[in-house]
């Protein structure tokens, strides 16, 4: 019998972290940090979690502590949001380049300016190219389960994993969550095996200056240059696709819950119009799809769970042959267009009969998005597509004249 509790997304993440029992947790406690870091501090204070909790002076330092602790072979955790994540930016690259299996929760919030503490996905989207795996959750059950899966993935491919979930919509909203048993989690997640930990018996310098060319080390062994190391990172994150699928499959065998690996879909098989989204907005789109189906519109949903690595093969299989694709996204690439709709189009490049793709920028800075608004946007985009418009961008519920 599952131990089901009503909890917020932050509580679900904290309980997930407690179950994997990191050796070191580092966090900066001030806004935009969330209750998640506070709960973990309480666990440590109350003695129910034996982690070393390092309260640092900035998000840049919290990730630095995690990188350093991971380098000596510790399992680590940190969490942040919005501008805190932006402040970590440099260390995100260092973590990925150092191939440390750090796991971090990003509670998605809008970024300043102007100041916002409310939800969108601009924060993690803007860290897309740092070499991290990014997984997006649709509900609180998926948060606790994805935190556990994230360690399994990170510690197999030695690439850091960011578990992203929507601020307030999930982080502060209570839902029933089944808590996995501790022994089951230990069975699913073996202890971390560091590749080459920093220990006194094997003194090494990590990440000295690397030159463009290969070099012979003091023993005369030919070593990689900078570009070779970067190719290894690129291959590792590409190969992580299968690791993510497998981590989810085996999670299902242990806990009877799976999330589709890299993507999930809803009523998409016989859909002519597919709504594509990520995180809680994709959950909301399923409600809109039910409303559209009642009106006789054959709609479905495809959602990205893994944004990096990008699920190109899955998207081609799920979106090929549709009559229209409408992307709903909470992030922007300023000067180009919607955050990931451009990548959806790229994924479909070269397929026969590529469907028209319209995209809707929605919910920036926490602006409310209702299922009926999503359904209306789909109807209006369908009208434009019928009129021959192949690509269009809309800003939902937003008009500045």
């Amino acid at each position, binding site marked *: 019998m599952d131990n089901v509790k009503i909890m917020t997304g932050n509580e679900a993440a904290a309980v997930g972290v407690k179950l994997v029992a990191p050796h070191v947790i580092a966090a900066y406690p001030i806004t935009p940090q969330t209750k998640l870091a506070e709960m973990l501090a309480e666990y440590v204070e109350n003695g129910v979690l034996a982690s070393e909790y390092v309260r640092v002076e900035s998000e840049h330092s919290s990730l630095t502590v995690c990188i350093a602790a991971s380098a000596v072979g510790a399992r680590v955790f940190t969490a942040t949001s919005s501008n805190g994540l932006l402040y970590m930016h440099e260390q995100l690259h260092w973590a990925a380049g150092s191939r440390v299996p750090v796991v971090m929760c990003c509670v998605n919030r809008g970024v300043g300016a102007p100041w916002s503490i409310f939800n969108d996905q601009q924060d993690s989207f803007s860290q897309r190219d740092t070499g991290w795996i990014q997984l997006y959750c649709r509900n609180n059950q998926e948060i606790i389960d994805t935190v556990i899966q994230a360690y399994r993935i990170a510690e197999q491919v*030695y690439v850091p994993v960011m578990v992203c979930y929507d601020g307030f919509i999930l982080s502060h909203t209570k839902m029933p969550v089944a808590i996995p048993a501790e022994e089951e989690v230990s069975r699913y997640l073996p202890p971390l095996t560091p590749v*080459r930990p920093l220990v006194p018996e094997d003194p090494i310098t*990590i990440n000295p*200056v690397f030159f463009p060319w290969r070099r012979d*080390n*003091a023993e005369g062994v030919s070593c990689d240059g900078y570009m070779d190391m970067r190719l290894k990172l690129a291959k590792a994150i590409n190969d992580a696709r299968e690791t993510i699928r497998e981590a989810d499959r085996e999670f299902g065998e242990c806990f009877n819950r799976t999330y589709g690996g890299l993507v999930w879909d809803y009523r998409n098989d016989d859909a002519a119009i597919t709504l594509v989204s990520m995180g809680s907005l994709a959950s909301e789109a399923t409600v809109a799809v039910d409303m559209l189906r009642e009106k006789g519109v054959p709609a479905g949903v495809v959602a990205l769970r893994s944004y990096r690595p990008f699920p190109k093969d899955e998207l081609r299989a799920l979106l090929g042959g549709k009559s229209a694709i409408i992307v709903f996204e909470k992030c922007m690439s300023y000067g180009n267009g919607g955050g990931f709709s451009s990548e959806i189009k790229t994924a479909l490049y070269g397929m026969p009969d590529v469907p028209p793709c319209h995209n809707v920028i929605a919910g920036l800075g926490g602006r409310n998005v209702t299922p009926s608004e999503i359904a209306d946007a789909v109807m209006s985009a369908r009208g434009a597509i019928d009129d021959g418009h192949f690509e269009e961008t809309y800003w939902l519920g937003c008009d500045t004249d």
Partner: protein
Amino acid sequence: MTQDTNLFGICTPAPGEAGNTGDWRDRRPVIDHTKCIPSVKEKEACFLCWLYCPEGIIGMSFPVTIDLDYCKGCGICAEECPPNAITMVNEVSDNG
């Protein structure tokens, strides 16, 4: 498949791990062993050059030696030497 242990940038503490850094140098330290305290006394004394050298390439020996394969020519040893026994000289003479 065996795990690749070279996933991130690693070097070990050994001479030459960063390459032949001596060729970065444009000025070379030259020791006047008649002024150098440990060289004259032939016992462990002073060695401030050894202490301050950021490259760790000054030998605690009699006379004191500098490994020019790795000396970058920063001049800290000359700056710190109490009897001014070390002079920095141009690698290339002024007239070419």
